[in-house]
């Protein structure tokens, strides 16, 4: 089936491709950004949560009277109070083998992870609300915590009684004759990987403000969400607020990286509190809560094996991805999407591997629910695929570039064994480009020379293909449900200026600038004449969320389609006024010009003015609506690709790993703004370096989270971050606006594998090969001394 909103008009790139400085910057650089905590509503109250101190326990009693009696405390709610309005929020993944869970807004009867909200104290200030929380006394009767996902799946106590066998998700596919492929292999390379538990760690924590006016039944909810329209939907679906009187507002947001792409119990609780208490209620998450409860990410155990023929070409893959899911599915993504994506989407990557045995499973555990973080499933999947490729390179005594060239897909369109079609890509070129960027022979010489001096450097390679522009077609290609379209509104005013609203919220990606570049080229107006509003309010348009590297493609498509409607009217009017054929009119540099007729032009300002004030200039049947709202959802899945080569050095005194340099190749089709693309790469790669070398959320044997402050959860700082060399390849998509592709996740998707490979390369003389991230200094030191 085809739909009108999948068609994107063509566009001539002029502003597109330029390093346009971001319009948001002067505001943000002068302290005028308005983030959630900066908003103060008259009479606002402050909420603070009492959170479970037990990993798994029966709640015998919750004593709240002392807290209620504290001066300045307005209300204390427990699970019973919240359940009167809402049983909880349901999470599941719409694939075979998923069992849903319901997450209560406040725990009743049983707590299932440390940090789970048990009660909420609402007070005149955050200080007093915290004092009140200290006075709430919860009596826990301990239950056995379920902490090891692999043993949990074999039986034993249940982490969450909704999942009695701890199986939240289990499924898979066998594609081709796997047994024969492995039996006939010249060599099989296999390993078990563990990718550690991470926090997305946005600099701004979560936060919510709810304000309800009973006279109009109007609810306003400020939340720094990546999915405000979905949050709004939930306000009606779960809480019964009338949809037409709900507004979700998203102020400036200090990073999200997927963590803010969920609906949270706190977001559902605050509107109820605001309504029942008849005062605005604000909750600004603190960093300890953020590390403890704002979803964890990426943790998986993955068993993977490749069969190779005698020419070192991969012929088959077998993979089992096991997610350590936490106690609930966090809607809407669930604990399942991480291992599902790793197993079902990533094992073949850029390689022509015709046979595949794919298994995914997610275990419920008494830990914080797993949520989305940049590169969901792709990061772990790329880690295991690319690191196993380097293991194979060592086994075959080939260079990491050559082993990949033996299997890389060279002809497009290409259909992988899962049936996903890749229309185009620069997969081979990426490998070649990286090889020349690092000057591979020179690197090997330097490595040998340094090794003779007792210094250990290593080179790691990782190449990727990334689903981008999350869309309905993308979901279908992967046997997932879901409809993902966004709308945009483009409005031209009488003086020719343009106001654009998009359905996406923005967390620092510069969408307002890149979308202005698209509109500038579509309408021929200058960037100064364009104002882009992201989804600062759900009053604007519809958006499926800033997720899945979809911003540039989906918003770009919607903006382009809406601009095209305006463009068509301006062209018709100009043709009438200039007495030319519409097909000869172009809009460029602020004017409509007649191609091939020098001097025959009219400014776009004059055209706009004529639309509003001069009916005599209109052609027959002209409709003067200079405002258009259109949707976009690409007809086909879109994939960007690229790779990183990373050089590290190991310190033999302490096992510390230093990243010396990062070489990146990115192909996201037509680049709208190279500064912004490179910013996404650097930021994502450094997050990947953190994942590979520093960041780890740790539970002890009682299920207590040990890493609850930034003193223990270490993220990369400036001294831990390398210089970059970035090259762009441009293989445009044939069916997106201007050929652009999404790329927001690529850095984090592929960097950890490159870092781990580099460490293993530096250790290659020792015989030790590491397969877990983060790599610890202790592991490196042990290996260097073995």
């Amino acid at each position: 089936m085809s739909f009108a909103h999948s068609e994107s008009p063509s566009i001539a790139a002029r502003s597109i491709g330029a390093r346009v400085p971001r319009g948001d910057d002067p505001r943000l650089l002068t302290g005028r950004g308005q983030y959630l905590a900066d908003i103060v509503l008259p009479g606002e109250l402050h909420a603070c949560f009492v959170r479970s101190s037990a990993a798994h326990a029966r709640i015998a009693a919750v004593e709240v009277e002392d807290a209620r009696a504290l001066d300045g405390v307005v209300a204390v709610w427990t699970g019973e109070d919240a359940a009167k309005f809402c049983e909880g929020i349901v999470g599941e993944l719409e694939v075979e083998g998923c069992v849903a869970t319901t997450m209560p807004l406040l725990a009743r009867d049983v707590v299932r992870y440390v940090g789970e909200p048990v009660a909420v104290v609402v007070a005149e200030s955050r200080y007093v609300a915290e004092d009140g929380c200290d006075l709430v006394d919860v009596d826990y009767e301990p239950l056995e915590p379920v902490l090891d996902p692999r043993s949990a799946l074999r039986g034993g106590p249940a982490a969450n009684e909704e999942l009695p066998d701890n199986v939240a998700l289990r499924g898979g596919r066998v594609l081709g004759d796997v047994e024969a492929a492995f039996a006939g292999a010249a060599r099989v390379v296999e390993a078990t990987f563990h990718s550690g538990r991470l926090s997305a760690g946005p600099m701004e924590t979560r936060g919510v403000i709810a304000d309800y006016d009973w006279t109009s039944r109007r609810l306003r909810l400020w939340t720094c969400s990546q999915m405000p329209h979905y949050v709004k939907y939930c306000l009606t679906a779960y809480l019964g607020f009338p949809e037409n009187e709900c507004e979700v507002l998203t102020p400036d947001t200090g990073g999200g990286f997927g963590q803010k792409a969920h609906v949270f119990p706190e977001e559902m609780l605050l509107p109820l509190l605001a309504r029942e208490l008849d005062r605005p209620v604000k909750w600004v998450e603190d960093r300890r809560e953020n590390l403890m409860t704002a979803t964890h990410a990426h943790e998986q155990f993955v068993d993977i094996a490749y069969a190779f023929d005698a020419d070192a070409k991969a012929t088959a893959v077998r993979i089992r991805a096991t997610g350590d899911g936490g106690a609930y599915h966090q809607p809407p993504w669930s604990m399942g999407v991480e291992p599902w994506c790793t197993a079902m989407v990533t094992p073949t990557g850029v390689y022509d591997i015709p046979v595949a045995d794919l298994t995914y499973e997610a275990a419920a555990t008494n830990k914080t629910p797993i949520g989305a973080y940049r590169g969901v499933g792709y990061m772990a999947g790329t880690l295991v695929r690319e690191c196993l490729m380097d293991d194979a390179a060592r086994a075959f005594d080939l260079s990491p570039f050559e082993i990949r060239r033996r299997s890389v897909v060279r002809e497009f369109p290409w259909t992988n064994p899962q049936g996903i079609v890749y229309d185009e890509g620069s997969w081979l070129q990426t490998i070649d480009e990286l090889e020349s960027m690092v000057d591979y022979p020179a690197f090997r010489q330097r490595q040998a020379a340094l090794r003779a001096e007792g210094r250990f450097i290593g080179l790691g390679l990782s190449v990727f293909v990334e689903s981008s522009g999350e869309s309905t077609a993308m979901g279908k290609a992967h046997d997932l449900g879901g409809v993902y379209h966004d709308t945009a509104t483009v409005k031209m005013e009488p003086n020719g200026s343009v106001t654009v609203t998009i359905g996406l919220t923005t967390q620092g990606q510069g969408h307002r600038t890149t979308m202005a570049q698209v509109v500038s080229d579509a309408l021929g107006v200058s960037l100064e004449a364009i104002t882009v509003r992201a989804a600062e309010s759900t009053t604007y348009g519809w958006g499926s969320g800033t997720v899945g590297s979809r911003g540039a493609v989906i918003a770009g498509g919607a903006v382009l389609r809406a601009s095209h409607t305006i463009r068509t009217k301006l062209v018709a009017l100009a043709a009438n006024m200039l007495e030319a054929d519409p097909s000869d009119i172009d809009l460029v540099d602020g004017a409509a010009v007649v191609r091939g007729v020098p001097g025959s032009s009219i400014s776009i300002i004059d055209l706009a003015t004529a639309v509003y004030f001069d009916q005599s200039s209109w052609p027959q049947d002209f409709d003067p609506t200079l405002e258009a709202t259109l949707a976009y959802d690409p007809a086909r899945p879109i994939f960007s690709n690229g790779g990183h080569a990373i050089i590290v050095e190991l310190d033999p005194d302490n096992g510390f790993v230093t990243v010396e340099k990062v070489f990146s190749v990115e192909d996201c089709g037509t680049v709208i703004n190279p500064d912004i693309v490179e910013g996404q790469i650097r930021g994502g790669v450094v997050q990947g370096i953190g994942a590979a070398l520093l960041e780890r959320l740790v539970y002890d044997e009682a299920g207590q989270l040990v890493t609850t402050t930034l003193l223990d959860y270490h993220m990369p700082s400036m001294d831990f971050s390398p210089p970059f060399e970035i090259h762009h390849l441009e293989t445009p998509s044939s069916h997106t606006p201007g050929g652009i592709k999404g790329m927001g996740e690529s850095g984090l998707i592929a960097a950890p594998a490159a870092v781990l490979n580099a460490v293993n390369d530096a250790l290659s003389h020792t015989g030790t090969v590491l397969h877990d991230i983060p790599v610890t200094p202790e592991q490196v030191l042990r290996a260097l001394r073995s």
Partner: protein
Amino acid sequence: MKSPVFAYAAPDNVAEACRLLAEDEDAKILAGGQSLVPLLALRLAAPTTLVDLRRVPGLTGIEHEAGALRLGAMTTHRGIERSPVVRDVAPAIAAAASLIAHPQVRTRGTIGGAVAHADAAAEWPAVLLALGGHVEVTGVGGDRTISADDLFQGPFMTSLEPDEVITSVLLPVNGRQIWVGEHHRRHGDYGLSVMAMTYRQDGGVLTDVRLAVAGATGSVTRAPDTEAALEGRTPADGDGAVAALAGELSYTADIHGSADYRRDITTTLFQRALRAAGERSGQA
């Protein structure tokens, strides 16, 4: 993450500070606050009274007298790091200051506060111990001097009485070689192992060796067997001392490293100290 309620006072003399401390057994001194304020925010500390020393005169300043550096207790790490006097007479002390956290913390954190806090991973207690320094304190009952060896009693534990205020820290630097180093993952991190070694060096031979370790052990501690094993030897002849160090201390384990790991990196740190000593005497 907001502090619990406390009462606050900023007396303008030491005697008044001591009186306030004596009046409330749950009172705490506030110096720079760089360790105390986060503990308050996390509600891991809940003093009922904070006695702020910021108005007490005479608690800052750096003097070099009688072979020692006298550092006013409220002197900031940044002040020490940048002090021309310290850089002149004991550059290793200035360098040690620069290992503490980040500049934004060093501008506020004080040496007296750091010594009194006695964090097991902190630099100043190790330096004080390795130099055989002492602190001058004032309490309700009068003044006294406490040697570093007597001051540190364990993690976050000192022999200070609850009403006592450190007024200055004395570091006897003259005639001593000082080496301070640590293994830290990122700038400003707590050291996984912190070491301060001081000694006299005569014709390549090390004497009067004092070695203090922090970070890797449960509390800041000296390593007497190692000191003895090195006494009278050249840095190149340090194998016995290296072996002693691995054996004599009790190393801690946490999520950042096992006890074995900490032993290993403390050994390599000591080897760095020995190499530095060898370079100083012109023999590698």
